[in-house]
């Protein structure tokens, strides 16, 4: 009850923190998609490069977020952004690479060889094959990767409050430092609810982006 009252009292703050949180994750995963998808497509051309890139991306994900923030403070201090927005976005950008690159790579590689051969056989150039056939067919799996990245990093971004990036993590960090369970719980619940809502919204976007003729197969992914 106490918690509910607190949440209602600070509704305005909760909303602005939520928007802040969404903006942080959105910008980071947005940039990650713009880099990850082309990387994922590029490495389908070279098996060894693909293994190397995926290995590197996996290693990055194993670095605990708090450690990653710590590592970035001295480095980014050189350009005056040791804490705050920039390191938070960079961390999320890095964590997002693995699911996005891996899903793109897998999706493009798994395009039915018969379709690939048909596309070659009727005279499509490599770019046309990518644009007209491979990418449209890969979209459901690529989008699934983006969704994973978003959900994963809504959690990571909560920790970024410790380096002053703002977002819903602020409630949690204050709750801990002020021994105030109300703030702690409101922050934690808000992060979870946000993750669930965003995941479902993106699932809707994924279905909209999936080419019509494939909607049956898309249901499986």
């Amino acid at each position, binding site marked *: 009850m106490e918690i509910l009252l607190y949440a209602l009292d600070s509704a305005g703050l909760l909303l602005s923190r939520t928007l802040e949180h969404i903006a942080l994750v959105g910008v980071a995963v947005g940039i990650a998609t713009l880099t990850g998808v082309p990387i994922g497509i590029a490495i389908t051309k070279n098996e060894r490069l693909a293994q190397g890139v995926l290995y590197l991306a996996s290693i990055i994900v194993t670095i605990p977020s708090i450690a990653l923030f710590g590592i970035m403070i001295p480095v980014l201090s050189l350009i005056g952004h040791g804490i705050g927005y920039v390191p938070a976005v960079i961390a999320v950008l890095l964590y997002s690479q693995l699911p996005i690159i891996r899903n793109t790579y897998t999706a493009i590689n798994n395009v039915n060889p018969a379709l690939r*051969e048909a596309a070659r*056989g009727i005279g499509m150039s490599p770019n046309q094959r990518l644009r007209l056939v491979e990418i449209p*067919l890969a979209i459901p799996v690529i989008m699934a990767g983006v969704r994973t990245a978003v959900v994963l990093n809504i959690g990571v971004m909560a920790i970024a409050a410790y380096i002053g990036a703002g977002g819903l993590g602020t409630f949690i960090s204050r709750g801990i430092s002020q021994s105030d369970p109300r703030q702690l719980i409101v922050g934690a619940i808000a992060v979870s609810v946000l993750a669930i809502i965003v995941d479902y919204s993106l699932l809707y976007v994924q279905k909209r982006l999936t080419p019509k003729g494939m909607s049956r197969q898309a249901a499986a992914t």
Partner: protein
Amino acid sequence: MIRLDSLTKVFDTPKGAVVAADHIDMEVPEGEICVLLGPSGCGKTTTLKMINRIVKPTSGKVFINGDDTTGLDTQTLRRNIGYVIQQIGLFPNMTIEENITIVPKLLGWDKAKYKARAREMMAMIALEPDAFLKRFPSELSGGQQQRIGVARALAADPPVMLMDEPFGAIDPINRAVIQDEFLKMQQALNKTIMFVSHDIDEAIKMGDRVAVFREGKLVQYSTPDDLLAAPKNAFVESFLGEDRALKRLNLVKVREIVTDEIGTVTPSDTLETALAKIDNYGYQNAILMVNDRKQPAGIVSRSVARTTKGYCRDHFQTVPAVVGLDDDLRKAASLMFAHDQTWLPCVNDEGTVCGQITQRAMTSHLGARYRARQGDDRTPSPAIKE
């Protein structure tokens, strides 16, 4: 016209070089279907795919309508060759219309032209344009999908088509229907077609010529009838099967071996006349009775004619079966076996009797080629010597 000049493909595998196609020389005349036939791994598919460079030739040249394709840009080459594959390969993200019009679009046709072309193609493959054009491949049956696959290959009206076991994944009943439809289309289109198959019956049905491959080499290249009548070696012979003479029945029309001499009686003839005619013509057991329009009306058997007195009209049996001039021998043979007959009357399109076909004539026609071949051999085979 497609001409292959010493076309060769060597694959480098960990176990060493494998020659998948070894100096293939052949020519498919314009407007003909050439079936590449052979067991798996014989090089037929490799040979086909070298024509549109899905497989890059190691050496040798491909000529299309007399022009060397070596210098041609790969995409241009492929856009001018229709390509149909066994897995069909319709793009699931595109509608039927988008699938059919993809090559015209790649070739830069304008919208009105390729849209009209899509409807034209649907009419050709006998699918209703309004019902199908806006649908997606996943909503169609396998047979319908492969018809669309053929339509896609034909959309830009290429002079040459390559078909890689196009009907292999379709159930036997639909396959026969699609084969027939395709042959009918081909009569109008007159494309030069290379067609890979591992099915001897399909090869005989579809091919104007058949090329038999074995271990990367072209073993025999001839018309289906020549192939069945005179297989070049033991491999071809065993591949064609021991019933290859029977397969030839499909290729010969009744018209080719019918004898127009046939003795008949009329209903008003006496049985005595009938018996005399049976003896005169040397028939063993019966004679055909025709009505006044020369249509088959019945048969009068020798035993009845010999033992009974009276008129044919009172002592005939029904005609067991007749064949038309354009039926193939397979049907004729089947009718003979089914009705325990050694001969059948033949009728023309108007239904009037124009001759007869006998088992003897059939076996002698099929055997003629075989005997000729034996005669060519300088040393007769031991089996014949005995």
